[in-house]
Structures are given as C-alpha cells and as structure tokens.
C-alpha cells in the first residue's frame, strides 16, 4: 500500500508538472517574430570575411527600429567591388524558418545592394540570395525568403534552394556598394517567419521585475570562493584591496603548462533557473587581454557548462555580463559549440570563473561586485554572504583552559597534531595550532573535537583563523551527530594568509552537505542538538607542510534586540509531535496512584534481585498529583516493582499496557514480565529496552506480541502469550543499574480499534543567555510543555554560569540533562550521568608552563533536579605538556555515594566510595615525515573506601564512567596504545589490562567484565593502489568515488575477560570516505569467537563463532532520488539447553537482514522517504515498513508526517526487529 501511495505521490509531483509545461504559445505561421533586436547582446559580427568593408560591429542606440538598441556596423568601401559582411555563426537547425526580415539604416549617401548569404552543412556550402537595393537612410522590412529557389551557389547559377537548412554555419548579410566611401550600417529588428520550431530563436526577453542581488563585494566576512588547484592552474583566492573599489578577490594563478585554465569556484546547491544574468567586475593587470569564461557545474554529474568567451582588456572590465538565457553556452552535449543554454540550471553545484592566463608563472586578476540578476532572489539567497552583524556571540572555546581538546586525525588525513598555541593573539592569549603534512593536492588534514554538544540554541559558529603560510588554504567544518555519527559538512571557506577574522558558519541556512542532501549543499543542520564530534578539515590544495591557527570559537544566537541583544538574548527550540493509532486507551485507575496508595504495587525482590521499595510520591507525577517512587539498590543489579492482583487479572481484553517512567539516574534498561495465576506461575518476559535518563513517556508493552520469552521458548523472545486471562503479577524490571530511584505513573490499557491520539506533546524551550563580556556567561533554559493525557510542565530545565579569566574557566551548572560543562579532560562522560546534575568545574592553564589543570565536582543521581544529590564525584587532573602535545599527567578522583536521600555527602555515611590515583602520558614522535608514532599510556590505581565502591573504565580515548567494582579494595588498570603512520598505512595497537571487578557492561557492548585486551588494527588507504589508482584516472567521478577508500583489518584479542569467558574478534572493512564520495559504501566482515572457557559439564561447546557480513551503500540517482541499501548475513548461534544431552548445545543459524530506503526530494524543501526492513531466520521473521514526508519550513522548522515506526537506520542495524505498526505521526521541530 505504502509503495502504491509513494508511486502516486511520485506521479503527482514528477509527471504533472511536466504535463503542464508542455503547453504552447499562440503561434501564427504568417507572422514575423523577433529573432534579434540587439538589445542585450550582439550575436552578429564582422569576423572572418575576406577584405571586409565592415570592420567591426557594436551595440548602438543611434538608429533603432525596435527596442532601444541596434547593431552599428561602420564601413569603408575603399574600392569598387569590395563587399561588407555581417553575420552570425552556428545557429544550428533553422529549417523551421521560411523567411527573415531586417531593418537597415544606411548612414551614408552611398547606394548599396544587400543579399542574404548563408553557408550550411559540413562543407560550409555557399548560398547567396538575390540582392535588394538599399537607399541612404532607413530601409525597413527587407525580407529574404529562405525557401525560394533563387540562391546562387559558389559554382554559380541563381536558381538553387538552400541546402542543409538544418545545419546553418554562417548566416549573414552581404553588402555591395555602388561606389566608395565610408559610413555605417545599422541593423535592427531581425524577425523570422516560419513553422513551429522557430520559437527557440525568439529572444529570451528580460523579464520584468528583475532584481540585482549582490552576492559578493568581498568587503565583509571570509572569502567564499576557492581556487581549484590540481585540475587547474588556479593557485590561491584571497582578499585584496582594490584601488578605489574597497576589497576585491585576488584570484592568483600559477601557469606551468600553457593552455591550462585557472578556475575559481564557489560551491553550493542553487536553483538558478530564474537567473537572467550574472555581472561582475574584473581587473586584468596583464599586458595583454585575457580570455575568460564562466562555468557552471550542474546536475548530479556536475556537468560542465561553459559560457561564451569573454575578452578582458587590460585594466578594469566593469559589468562583465554572462547571460544565462542566451544560446551561446557550450557543453559536451552541444559538441562544445556555443549554441545552447546551460543544462540542468535548476541544480547548480558550482559556479566558476575560468581564466586563461597568458603568461607562465604567477599572475592574478581582481574580481569584484559579483551580482546575480534574477526574478526570484529566494532561489539564490544562499549565494549571499551571511551578515554576522545580526548575531550576538558567546564563547565556546577560546583555548584558554588548558588542553585544546582537539586531536589530529592522522589516521585519515595529513593532520600531524593539534596543540595549544600560547602568546598567540586573538581576543585572548591562546589559540590552537594545527600542524599538517599532506602529500597530494587533494589530501586534507582533519582535526576533531569529541564531546557531547548541544548547539540547538545556537544559530551559527564563528571563529578566527591565522594562516602563517604564503598561500591560502581552505577549511570546512564537519559535524558528526547522533548515535549514527551522521556526517554533515559546511562549504569550504578560503583562509587567506594572515588573520581571517570572524569566519562564520550559519547553522540556519540550507547550506550543508550530507548524505541526506546527496552531498549537495542544501541540507539543514537540524541535528545540531546532538553533536558528537566537530571536525575541522583543512585543505592546503597542494603537497605541503605547515600549520594553521584557530582561536575564539564562538557560538552565535540571533540578536533581536539591537545593543541589548549583544549581551542578553534568547533562542527558541520547539519539539512537538502528535501520534494517531488505531488504539484506544483507558486509564488503569488504581495505578495512577491518585488515591494515595500504591494500588497493589510494591518493591519486588525475587531470587537474585536487589532490594527495592515502592512508595507513593508527589514528585514526577506524569498524570495527576502522585506517582509511584521505586527505590532500588544492591547487587546483583536487577531490581523491580511488582503488581499483585487481588485475585487474578484478565488481560485478554487488552492489547497493550502503557505507562510513564521518570529516570533521574543514568541510562539503564528495563523489561516487563507477567506472571500467570497458575500453579507453575508461568513467567512471560519481554526483551530489554533502553531506559533513558529523564522522562520515558508512553512505554508501551504489546501484550499480543510475539516476542515474549518463557521457559518453553528456551528463554528466547519469540513467542506469544497464549492465555492472558489469568494473570497474577506484573513486574517492571530494571537492569544494568545498581542503585537509584525511578518514578512510575499513568498506567493505561490499550485496545486495538478506532483511531485515536495515543501521544501528543508540545515542548517549547526558551534559552536565555546573558553574556556581558567574554569573561562571563550565564544561561538558563525554560521549558513549557504540554503532553496529551499527561501533566503539563513549566520547568527551569538547566542553567549554567561561566566565569573566565587568567587562563581559566569556572563553570557552575545544574539541571536536567545538563551537558554544559566542557570536560576537556574527559574526567566524566556526561552521557553516563543521570538526568539531573549539579556541579562546578574549574579548568585552565597555569602560567607559561603549559600545565593544564582541571578540577570538577558534581553531584548526580538526584531524585529531583535542583537538589544537591547524595552522590558526588570530585576529580582533579594535572597535565604537563612539553614539546607540543606530549604530556605527563596525574589524576586524583574521589567519589562517594550514599543510599539515604538525606545523607551528608561529605561527612555522612555512604555506602560506596573510592579514591583513584594514576598517571598518564602521551608521546608523539614524528620521524622526519617518513612516519610518525604516537604512544599513549595510562596507569590507574583504585583504592576502594567501601565494600561497594564506584568506578571506572578506559576506552580509547580514555573515558571514565561510573561503574561498579566488586569486593576487592584495590584494583589496577593499565592502558597503553601506540599509533604509527607511514604514508597510507596506519598501525594502531592497544593493550588494556583491568583487574577483574571492573564492570563495564553498559559502556560499550563489546566490553565485558574486566579484560586483558590486545588490539591490532591495520588501516591502509587504497587510493594509490591498483585498481583504485586506475579508477581515479578514468574519470573525476571515479576519483571522487574511491577517494580515501580504506581497508582495515583488526584483531581484537580479549583473551581474558573473566575466568570463564574469552573473545577474539577479527574484523575486515572496506569503505570509502563518507565525507567525499558521491556514493558511499561500507563492507564489513566480522568474525567473533566468544564464549566461556570454563570446563563445565553444562557446556558442551565452549565458544561460539559468529560471522557477520554487512554491506551498506547509498546510491544516488540524480539529485532527487537516493537509495540506501543494507544487506547482512549474520551466522550466529544460541546456546540452548538440550534435554537429551543434558547440557547446553550450540544451535547455529543464519539471520538475514535486508534494509532498503528510498528518498526522493520532491521540492527543495519537501522530501519523501520510505524504507523497508526485513529480517529472517529460523527463529523469527520480521518486516517493517516506514515512510515519512518532511517539509522544511522557513529554513528553521521541520514538519514531518510519518507512517509506522522508524527503524534504526544507522551504520549497524540493531536488534530492533519489530514489525510494521499502524501509526501516523506528525512531528514539528524548530530552532529559532
């Protein structure tokens, strides 16, 4: 059905407009229609005619019979018999023309004869009409038939008809004077008569209401045009002052091979179908004139379209104009003859100025006042520079507070290192130096900053860059967002030598490229709420070594209040949705806890579960005034709330159970179980689902689903509850957490039937910001929300105050999901914290010694926000940098957690606590550019103050998180890694040893309890290896496709994860650069040998081998249609109990997954996406349809209508194997 609807929509959008455009003008074959009135362009010339009495042709307003211009052709008939010729070339097929008429003014006293002379066909056949006598003065309406048999050929006669009218090479008027003398001919109002088909010769009249949009006067902001090095001799593009013209772009070229052109481009994605012309000024300092053209790269193949040649005289050439509607463009389709208008003009990817430098070596031109003349400025508005004056700014990173937090991505680029630059300048004292060493002109250097960042309340980013090189470089900023780490990237910005202040990235315009926009610069940056990585990409455009500096990165917000707005302002973020499903809900009254009782609920403590207590609470009620508050604690991290029916419950009348949970702690998991009122007490349990920090509204348990598990399913989630009529207990089970509290409320029963609104919410955040100076920042977020069927909310959700100075930064923060603190030492991963945190952090650099320090104290795991929690973390870190990014560091951390809500954090009893101390180091050794090595190491020693202390875990890079240790009081952790880069080869080795007792289960699915891991990862960039090198030579498209294709082999030997468990993983991956390629692909084969080595009679098969092969690719079909495909075969196994064998046996099977998604951009702002996911194995088969239609409104608001449940579409498919559900959802999100 969805497919049919999609096809219907496609038809509506694609076919109907074409049908409408097939209309025709009211054409009269007996009338003459204007062909050329010489209003905007000549088209006719006096070139290439022997002994021509006409020496030149120029536009004139002197003698005009049509419009306001004519063609003036001065002549000098110096001797008898001399002829004068004025003509146009290569008009193509004029077979539809029957006759042509001219108005001619003879500005002389000479009597002349004129005839039509045409040359046609491949051999330029000559045809000359009978002559017509011209009188001095006006001679209007001189008509020549093109079909009459009265033409003379080169071989004589006067009775021929014109041959090959469909291949017109030369079409001109030939004048013979009856005497000698000079004067001028004025030609105007050339009209044609004929059949349908002559319309293509009608001039494109300049539409009324054309607007002149100055897209670049090069006065403000960074330079957006870049030199296309490598494939042209363009060298640099930089700003320069032009005498009397303010700033201009200095386009520098370096001609080494004569004939090579110099291309200077601006990339984007623009619909230029309403552009009439582009005008600009060019200064040519060369001794000779220079040729130039303008080129457009259009369509999904970036097809090159080139304008007619323009001759630039020495000096300023003002108002050089390129007409977009003139049939004098050339492209491959036209055989490179200037006879067409540019193709696919509605999808212009790149606008280029193309120069033909005359001299070897370096030269330049100046460009200024680039102006687009169009009837619809909105279509090209993104060509205009952003005026940063409309914004106010707050500091994001001024590099004052110790380590820069950025690191060189030297395994994928020519980045060498990123380090703090002291005494650097900028608004404050410090900045970041990014060193690079790139080997080819197409290579880049990438530097990343990893953290969780929410830029939703910002409308842009600004930074200053200093380029100490003698050539400009280009930079682009990429972001990886969300769990999928989705790549989105800005346009390239040219960074000229010297300071480049106020480089600005506008978050609000549709000027980003991503896979979503088919790598056109038309995407909106709506995912900026959840940024995981910021990547700065530097393109030196040549093999080069050097550094570039960056400082004062600031985030922008709209300034709506003038001067006040510079220090005080706000932004708005809206998240709203409404869901309609064929389900009706009824309240489960007693489980809404409004009568002050727990209504049959209590803390559950089954065998092996931790303790839990349930009470009625006035806090976090999602409906009414009360909620059920569940305390839970203790090992072995499985807790629950239990509902016991008075007798039994008949749930067969219901299809769903729905409820809300507030989790003030960190992320965990939950499941729901039902226990039957039978003698066996049959237990049915769902899969585990993620329990997010904060609100988890509308948790819905499908009572009729087929993914329950019980003893009879070998505890595999693949059965349906056979009889729900006799239920005794319902359990809400929390796993993967050790201690805390959750609030539950608003239990409802759902029944399939009529459509109703099952979920609806409007969340409006107002982000207040106060930045009186760069040294002080205060911010708060106020949320007003309405939830359908639930309580409304008006909360101050988060706030922070930052004081900067003396190279340090003091931050106080608090609130729900507060991610403000910028933990550059990665002391704590905020994602592992709970919903509510409060704390204070101080970071900075001590004097000139490059000693970075950090101290953070925070409370967490609150019952409610805005209260001091009864758990806290205090940490200090000291790093002494030397010789760049090398450092030696120490860490000291203390944590305590009390059970009681009123416990004194510092002095009172606590049940868990630990003190960690350790040292770390990083050494970087570049070996003369041949290769470089980075060695990092860390040793941590834990002393547990209590029986059940807290913490921590290493990843690469080190990230600490709150975790549980076992009884042992002292634990050691060692981590070491070494990275080596040799040309295109990267070798990464890592060793990690953790004493058993580190529980790392939920930090990374790949980590188990404690390990002794040995990792070897070998990555090789294949670009220069056959066949990739050959493919790159075949075509630029292939070169783009295979760029940064890398093959990776990894051995991850976790040979000791516990006494009884081990794992070895072998991974092979082939993928191309996700940021560059036109079509992305990623092929991964992963072999995992995992299992227990514990020799127990219950286990017949110690380890299980799983082999997973996954191919993901995104294929583009033009700009509008994209196809994403994923195919995976997972050869896996279960350990299942074999009654006959009396032990667990390996039960192997294949699981096939297919996922396909098609996206079509119906308009610039409207996109239809549909996907289908199919998973099948001997155990289960699932299929899921999903479709959504998204419209971008005002460039800042996204409105989405969807059907079904959106499956996980990230890099890896997860095990979310749900089937299609009937659900319609309207979602609105907007950033203002």
């Amino acid at each position, binding site marked *: 059905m969805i497919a049919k609807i999609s096809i219907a929509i496609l038809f509506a959008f694609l076919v109907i407009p074409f049908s409408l455009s097939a209309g025709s003008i009211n054409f009269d074959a007996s009338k003459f229609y204007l062909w050329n009135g010489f209003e905007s362009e000549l088209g006719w010339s006096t070139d290439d005619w022997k002994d021509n009495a006409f020496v030149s042709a120029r536009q004139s307003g002197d003698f005009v019979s049509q419009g306001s211009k004519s063609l003036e052709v001065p002549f000098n008939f110096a001797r008898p018999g001399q002829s004068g010729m004025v003509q146009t070339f290569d008009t193509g097929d004029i077979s539809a023309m029957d006759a042509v008429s001219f108005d001619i003014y003879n500005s002389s006293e000479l009597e002349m004869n004129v005839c039509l002379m045409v040359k046609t066909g491949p051999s330029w056949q000559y045809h000359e009409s009978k002559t017509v006598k011209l009188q001095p003065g006006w001679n209007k309406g001189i008509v020549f038939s093109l079909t009459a048999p009265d033409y003379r050929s080169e071989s004589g006669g006067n009775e*021929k008809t014109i041959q090959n009218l469909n291949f017109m090479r030369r079409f001109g008027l030939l004048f013979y004077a009856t005497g000698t003398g000079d004067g001028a001919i004025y030609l105007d109002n050339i009209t044609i008569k004929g059949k349908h088909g002559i319309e293509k010769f009608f001039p494109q009249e300049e539409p009324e209401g054309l607007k002149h949009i100055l897209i670049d006067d090069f006065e403000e902001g960074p330079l957006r045009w870049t030199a296309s090095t490598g494939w042209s001799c363009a060298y640099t593009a930089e700003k320069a002052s032009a005498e009397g013209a303010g700033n201009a772009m200095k386009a520098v070229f370096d001609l080494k091979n004569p004939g090579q052109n110099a291309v200077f481009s601006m990339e984007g994605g623009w619909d230029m179908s309403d552009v009439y012309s582009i005008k600009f000024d060019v200064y040519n300092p060369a001794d000779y004139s220079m040729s130039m053209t303008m080129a457009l790269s259009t369509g999904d193949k970036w097809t090159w379209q080139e304008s007619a*040649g323009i001759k630039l005289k020495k000096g300023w050439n003002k108002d050089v104009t390129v007409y977009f509607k003139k049939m004098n463009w050339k492209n491959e389709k036209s055989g490179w003859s200037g006879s067409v208008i540019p193709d696919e003009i509605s999808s212009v990817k790149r606008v280029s100025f193309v120069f033909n430098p005359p001299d070897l070596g370096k030269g330049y031109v100046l460009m200024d006042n680039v102006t687009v003349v169009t009837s619809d400025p909105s279509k090209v508005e993104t060509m205009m520079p952003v005026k940063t004056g409309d914004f106010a700014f707050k500091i994001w990173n001024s590099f004052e507070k110790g380590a820069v937090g950025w690191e060189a991505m030297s395994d994928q680029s020519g980045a060498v290192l990123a380090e703090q630059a002291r005494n650097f300048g900028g608004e404050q004292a410090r900045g970041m130096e990014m060193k690079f060493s790139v080997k080819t002109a197409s290579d880049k250097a990438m530097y990343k900053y990893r953290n969780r960042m929410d830029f939703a309340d910002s409308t842009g980013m600004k930074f200053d860059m200093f380029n100490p090189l003698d050539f400009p470089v280009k930079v682009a900023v990429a972001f990886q967002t969300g769990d999928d780490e989705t790549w989105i990237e800005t346009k390239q910005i040219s960074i000229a030598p010297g300071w480049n202040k106020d480089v600005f990235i506008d978050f609000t315009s549709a000027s980003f490229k991503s896979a979503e926009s088919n790598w056109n610069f038309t995407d909106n940056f709506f995912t900026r709420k959840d940024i995981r990585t910021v990547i700065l990409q530097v393109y030196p455009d040549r093999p080069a070594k050097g550094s570039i500096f960056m400082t004062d990165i600031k985030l922008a917000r709209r300034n709506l209040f003038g001067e006040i707005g510079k220090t005080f302002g706000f932004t708005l973020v809206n998240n709203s949705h409404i869901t309609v499903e064929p389900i009706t809900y009824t309240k489960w009254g007693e489980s809404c806890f409004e009568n002050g009782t727990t209504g049959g609920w209590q803390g559950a403590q089954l065998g092996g579960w931790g303790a839990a207590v349930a009470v009625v609470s006035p806090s976090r009620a999602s409906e009414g005034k009360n909620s059920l508050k569940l305390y839970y604690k203790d090992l072995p991290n499985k807790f629950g709330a239990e509902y016991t029916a008075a007798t039994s419950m008949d749930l067969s009348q219901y299809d769903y159970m729905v409820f809300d949970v507030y989790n003030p702690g960190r992320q965990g998991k939950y499941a729901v179980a039902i226990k039957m009122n039978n003698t066996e007490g049959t237990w049915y349990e769902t899969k585990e689902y993620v329990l997010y920090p904060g609100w988890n509204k509308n948790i819905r348990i499908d009572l009729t689903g087929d993914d329950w598990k019980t003893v009879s399913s070998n505890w595999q989630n693949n059965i349906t509850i056979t009889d729900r009529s006799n239920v005794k207990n319902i359990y809400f089970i929390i796993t993967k957490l050790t201690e805390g509290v959750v609030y539950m409320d608003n239990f409802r029963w759902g029944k399939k039937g009529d459509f109703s609104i099952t979920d609806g919410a409007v969340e409006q955040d107002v982000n207040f910001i106060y930045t009186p100076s760069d040294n002080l920042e205060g911010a708060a977020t106020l949320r007003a929300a309405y939830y359908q069927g639930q309580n409304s909310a008006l909360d101050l959700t988060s706030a922070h105050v930052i004081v900067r100075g003396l190279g340090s930064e003091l931050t106080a923060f608090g609130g729900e999901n507060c991610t403000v603190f910028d933990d550059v030492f990665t002391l704590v991963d905020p994602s592992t914290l709970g919903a509510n945190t409060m704390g204070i952090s101080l970071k900075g650099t001590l004097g000139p010694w490059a000693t970075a320090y950090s101290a953070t104290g925070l409370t967490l795991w609150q019952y409610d926000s805005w209260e001091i929690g009864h758990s806290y973390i205090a940490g200090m870190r000291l790093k002494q940098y030397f010789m760049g990014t090398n450092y030696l560091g120490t860490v000291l951390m203390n944590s305590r957690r009390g059970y009681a809500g009123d416990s004194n954090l510092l002095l009172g009893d606590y049940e868990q606590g630990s003190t960690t101390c350790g040292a770390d180091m990083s050494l970087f050794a570049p070996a003369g550019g041949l290769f470089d090595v980075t060695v990092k190491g860390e040793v941590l020693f834990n002393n547990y103050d209590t029986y059940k202390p807290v913490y921590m875990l290493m990843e690469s890079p080190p990230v600490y998180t709150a975790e549980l240790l076992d009884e042992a009081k002292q634990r050691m952790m060692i981590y070491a890694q070494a990275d080596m880069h040799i040309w295109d080869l990267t070798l990464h080795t890592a060793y990690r040893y953790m004493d058993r007792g580190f529980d790392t289960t939920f930090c990374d699915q790949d980590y188990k309890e404690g390990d002794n891991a040995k990792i070897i990862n070998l990555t090789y960039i294949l670009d220069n290896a056959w066949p990739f090198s050959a493919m790159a030579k075949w075509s630029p498209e292939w070169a783009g496709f295979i760029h940064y294709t890398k093959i990776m082999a990894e051995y991850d030997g976790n040979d000791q994860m516990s006494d009884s468990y081990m794992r070895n993983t072998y991974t092979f991956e082939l993928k191309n650069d996700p940021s560059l390629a036109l079509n992305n692909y990623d092929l991964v084969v992963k072999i995992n040998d995992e299992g227990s080595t514990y020799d127990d009679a219950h286990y017949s098969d110690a380890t299980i081998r799983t082999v997973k092969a996954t191919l993901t690719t995104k294929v583009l079909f033009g700009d509008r249609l994209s196809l994403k495909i994923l195919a995976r075969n997972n050869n896996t196994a279960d350990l299942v109990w074999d009654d006959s064998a009396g032990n667990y046996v390996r039960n192997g099977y294949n699981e096939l997954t297919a996922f396909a998604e098609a996206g079509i951009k119906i308009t610039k702002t409207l996109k239809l996406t549909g996907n289908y996911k199919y998973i099948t194995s001997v155990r289960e088969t699932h299929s899921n349809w999903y479709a959504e239609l998204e419209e971008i409104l005002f460039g800042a608001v996204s409105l989405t209508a969807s059907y079904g449940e959106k499956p996980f579409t990230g890099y890896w498919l997860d095990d979310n194997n749900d089937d299609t559900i009937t659900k319609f959802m309207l979602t609105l999100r907007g950033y203002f």
Partner: protein
Amino acid sequence: MKKTFFTAFLTLILAVYAQAYRVEGPLLKTDSGMPVRLASVYVHTAYQSDSAAVDDAFSALKKQGIKLVKISAAATGAAQGSLQPEPGRFDENALKKLDAIVSAAAKNDISLIIALSDPDSKETYRQWAGGSNADIFYKDKLTRGRFKKFITTLLSRVNTVSGVKYAADPAIFAWDLCDRADNINDATGMSMYNWAVEMSAFVKSLDTGHFIMMGLKDGFTIGDSVNGSDIFLIPNIDLAFYAATEFSEKGQVDALTAISDSTKAISAASGKPVILFYTGKAGIFDAAKAHMEAGGAIVMYNETAEQEQLVRTSAYTGSITDGVPAVTVNKVSATADVYAASVSFELSREAEVKVIYGTSLPLKQSALFKGTAFKGIVKIDGLKPGSEYMFQVMAQEPATGASGMSKVMKFKTTPPKRAAAVKFTMSKNIITAKDGDFYDGKKIYRYLGANCYYLRYYAPGRRDKASQSEAEITTARRKNMDYVLSEAAKIGLKVMRIGSNGEAVTEEEAKTADPLRYIRIGPDKFNEKALVEFDHVMEAARRNNIRVIIHFTDNWEYYGGVGVYAKWAGVSREEFWSNEQCKKYYKQTVDAWVDRINTVSGIKYKDDPVLFCWELCNEPWDRNDVTGKELARWIDEMAGYIKSKDPKHMVSTGSDSFFLKEDGTHYSGSDFIQDHQSKNIDFCTYHVYPTYEHNRFSLNTTKYLIDKWVDAGRTLGKPVVMEEFGITKDGEYNRNIWIDEMLTEFYARGGKGVNYWFFRDASYTADDGFAFTPEETETVNVFIKHANIINKGGY
C-alpha cells in the same frame, strides 16, 4: 580710473573701425597689428524679428559701443524662420531675412558671429534621419551630408540686399559651427570632435576669410577621449570659447578668480583668442575685466544684459600689453625616415618644447625636448612607416608660464624597403631525415616556408567578372600559382604546405561548390580536374625552386575531411581512426597521390623531389581515445602503408601536437610523443597560435612551448617542424616582433623547418587575421631576415 576707461574706449573705437581682424596666437589683432578686446552681444531673437526691428537693435547696440554681435542661422525644419524646412529644401524668404540682418549689421558697423546649428536644429536633423539619439547630428554620415549642403547653400549665397557673397562678406566675423554644442550619447566625445574637424575643414574649404568657432555648451567637459582644448586645437578652428554661468558659491571674488584662471588655461592650451560667454552674476563689467586681463579676447553677453555695464564693457580694452607676451614658435620643419622623424624649431625666447603628433586628430602622442632652448630638434621614434603624421610644436616658458605653438603641420614617414633576400636553388635530391636533421643529399637542410591552401582552385578576379570564360579562369589560376610561389621564393620561403585535400560526400554536394574544391567526390570518384590543377601547382613550385608538402586529408571539415570518410563508411566520425572501411578508403587516396604521374611534367609524384613529404592528415584528433593510443596506432599503420608505396619521401603526421596531461590524457586524443614515435614517421610537426582567442599566450609562454616541442623532438631523435604558426594583426600584438622572436627561438633551440600560416597574394582577400602578403614589407623583411640566415646555412 575714468580717464583709463576713456582712453580705452577711444582705442576700441579706433580698433573696431578697422573692421578686419587677424589672429596671432592668443591675440586678436586688427589688420594693422593692434591687439583688440571686443565686447559682444548674442541677439538670440534676431531671426525672429522683422528687419526694421533688427536695424533698430543694431543701431542701439552701436550706440552702446557694441561692434560684435552673435546671431543664429540655425533655424531648421518647422522652427520659426526656418532656413531649411525639409532636407535639402531651403526657404528663400527666410534666407532673404538673413540677408537683411547681415546688411543691417554692416550698416551699423557691426560684425556678426553666425551660428550654423544649435540644439534645436540638431533635433530636427535627428528626426529627419529617424535616429534615436541627439548626437545623430554628429554621427550619421547622411545627416552630416545634409548639414554640409546647408553650409554650402549659405556660404555660397549672394546677399540679396548687399550683393555680397556670404563667404566674402566683411560684416561677418565668424561662423559658429554649433551653438551650445554638447555631447550626450558618446562618452568618448569623439563623435562631436570628429564632426568639428570635418565641419571646420568643410567651412574653411568654402570660406577662408572668416573665423570659425565652436560654441561649446559645457566648456572643457566633452568626453573621455577629448576635451575642450582638443576642440580648440583643431587647425581650422580659429577661436577658443567657453561659457561661464557662475563659478563660485563663495562670491564674486572667487567667481572672477575662476574666470581669470579659466581664460588663462584655455588660452595656454589652445594658443587661440578666447571668447567668454558670460551669463553669471558676478557683474558683466567685472567678468569682462577679469577675462581680458587674463588675456581673453572677446567677452559675450546675452542681449538682456544691463545697458550701463554693456557700455562700460564695450569701452574697456584692459591693458592689452599687460602680462607676458606669448612665446612665438618659428621655423618649424620636420624630416622623417621609416620609423622616426626630427622636428626642428626656433623660439622667440627660451622655453620647454613638446611636439604633439599623430596620424589623426586629436594629436595624442607627444615627444619632449629635453630642457629648454631657443631652438632645437625633437626626435620622434616608433612611427608607422609610410604614414602621414600631423604635428604641432608647443612651447612654454617655465618661469612665466607663457606659451606658444605652431600651426598643425605634417610630415610623412617613408615606406619600408624590402630587404635583400638570398637566392636559393633546389637540388634534385629528395629530402630525407636522419638523427634529428633533414638532409639534402649529404648536406644538412633547414627551411623557412609557409602555408598557402588555395592555390589549387583559386583564380583571381573570378568573382568580379562573372562573365569570365573557363579558359580565362584557368589561365588566371595558373598564373597566380606562379605569382604566389615566385613571391614566396623572393622572400626565401623554400617549402610551401599547399592545401591538397578535398572530399565531398556526394556528387550533389560537390556541385554546390567550386568544381576544383574536391579531390574526391564520393568514395568512388577522384576529381581529375582538381588533381591536374595540383600538377600545375607542383610545376609552378618546381619553376620557383620550392618544395611542396601534401596532406592527404584534414581532421576539419572545411574541405570535407575525415568526417566524409566516416560518412562513406557509414560510421561515426570518431570511428574514422579505427574503422577498417575508412582505412581502406584512406589508402585509396594515398594510392591516388603516390601513384600519380604529373600530367604536366610526366614525373611520378613518388619520384618527384619537389615533394618535400607526405603528410597523413591536417591536425588529426581522435576524441574517442583521449589517451592518444588509438591515433598513434592509426598513424603508425598509415605511415607504414605510405612508406610501403613510396620509401623515398618522408612521411609526417600534420599533427598540431599536444602533450598529455599528468593523468595521461588529452581531450584531442593527440599526443606529440606518441604521434611521432612510429618508425614510419620521419619528422615531428606542431601547430601553434599563441595570440588566438582562447590562448592569448604571452611571448614568454610561447617560447616555453616552442622549447618544449623542440626538446621533445630531440628526445625522439627526429627533426621538428613548426608547421603552422600565426600571429594576429589586431593591434594588441606587435606581429613582426612576435614572428621574429618565435623564429629566433625555434631555430636557436634546434628546430628544423617552419611553415607560417599563411602567405597569400593580395588578390586573395579571405584573411583569417594571420596571413601576410608580399606587399607587407615589414613582415616580409622579418621572414627575409630569417630565410637569409637559413639559406646561407646558418642556425
């Protein structure tokens, strides 16, 4: 003070009674040589008034002491009192009225300045022409003709009252070519300037006795290319003129200072008496005083000016001996040779001297005399040979600023002489190539030559004389072959590349063009007539000791080319290089040439030493294979085939020759290296047009390219021929220097042969901008210079 005025008044009276004036530099003098200052009134309404009223007005002016009056004779079209109601039709009544006005002036001892045109008449002329701009009056030649007819009518008219011809009437002081002349549509100002040059000369041709002036509306401001002083420097314009309304907002003192400064500046720049037409508020008398004390000659007012002030002004002559007298420029003469001239001068006193010169007005080039002197010679270099130059000597005394100037004079540079060319002969050897050199027998051979594509079919005069008989045409054609080749030989051009291909798809197509245009008509027919004509070309070459390069076909379609072969074979053009049927057809063409016996001499082509080499194709491109490999295979195969038929003659490619880019491709599919690597190819060719539209290489870039080609040929061990090169003549490039430098670079680097594109005789006028003729002596001399070196065995 009063006494001074009285004395001056008497002086004026005496002066104007003389009634005849002459101009000496910036001074207006009476015939007796007495400098005068004149006050004048512009009587705008004279032509609208009856004769009695005009008489009264003149009488009144006379009483006020006014002796110079300006009137208008510009009324045209529908204007009141129109002298020319329609183009070429003159109103006798209106003319008689003018007669009466002129007579009334004479009667009242008043001299007249008569305006011949004005803004209103300009508009009428524009309307008559149907033009769109006011300046049509200046620009349109037809209109200029109409205006000249009016001038002729007026100046040749005999006054019906006085019986005096206008051109000789002493009552007329000056003709004003155009009253309130302005310039609207031409930012350069040149159209008005050229008009003034043309019209002042025309009036002067009809009337040498009266002064000519141009009543500019906006003073100095005319256009980007010319200004007011350029107009006043026009030789036939006798008086300078400017109009002043109000010079300063600050008051009278500033206004008068401005007048004084302007008068001095215009006087110095033009060297002619200056008329001030004043309508400002500074006060007539004070303005006149400022003007005259600054050296101004005439001050003019509107007829509405205050009577008392007019009287005072007319009586004021100022101190005409005040100030520094002008520097007189005497004994000016010039001598010129081909490229330079010497201008000698003598001055009345020591001054700086500048000579302004040019081939047309205004004279914008200048040469300075170093320092100051009473007399001296100014050297002018860089002149065009055989050209007539106008020049004017301008002097200025540094200390005082006093200036003077000569009249506009002329000199003519002499035409260049053709250099002597070394004669050469042709051996009976067939030229060969070995180890990077050409050999004529055992002697190393180098050459300078040219291209000439039309000799086979072109007959001079054919187009002009449609009635020519076939025999006459043939005679003319063959005569022209001899002429062109003999002229080439006189320059020292030893090898000519002559158009030798021509393919018509069908007979029908062949009929549409010259019968000799095609060598091959359809795949099955060779055009024997055309081949016979080429036989004659060969014989003409033999007679002139010139060798000939023959190319079998052309990549381009001007004469058919490879595209026609592809059509014959029914394949796409791109397949020509690989299609077997195309290759078969091509080999047939090779056979036809190689096996041919010259119908004139009886010599087989393959034995003929006149044939320098066979050439595969003009500028072969194979866009089907941008790596160049396919074309190289074709070249190897076809050259091998030719060698198998004619092992004696050299074979080359005709390639324009590119170099592959770094990625191993070139869009032409032609690569210099691969094209010439074949053992069957004897030497390398390339074509280069550095000044062509899409190249526009500098000379340095061009030399770099030449070096690259020659060096690459040396690497291949084969001689390199610059088989086509051409420099445009569009003025931006000095063609002769470019040719000279390119030839020097090429031969000095080790190049072996050159064919310039192209050499033509003057009758063949289809010039693509590159060609030169035997008459272009300067260019010919460059070729002779290099041919002489080559033909003497140099380089």
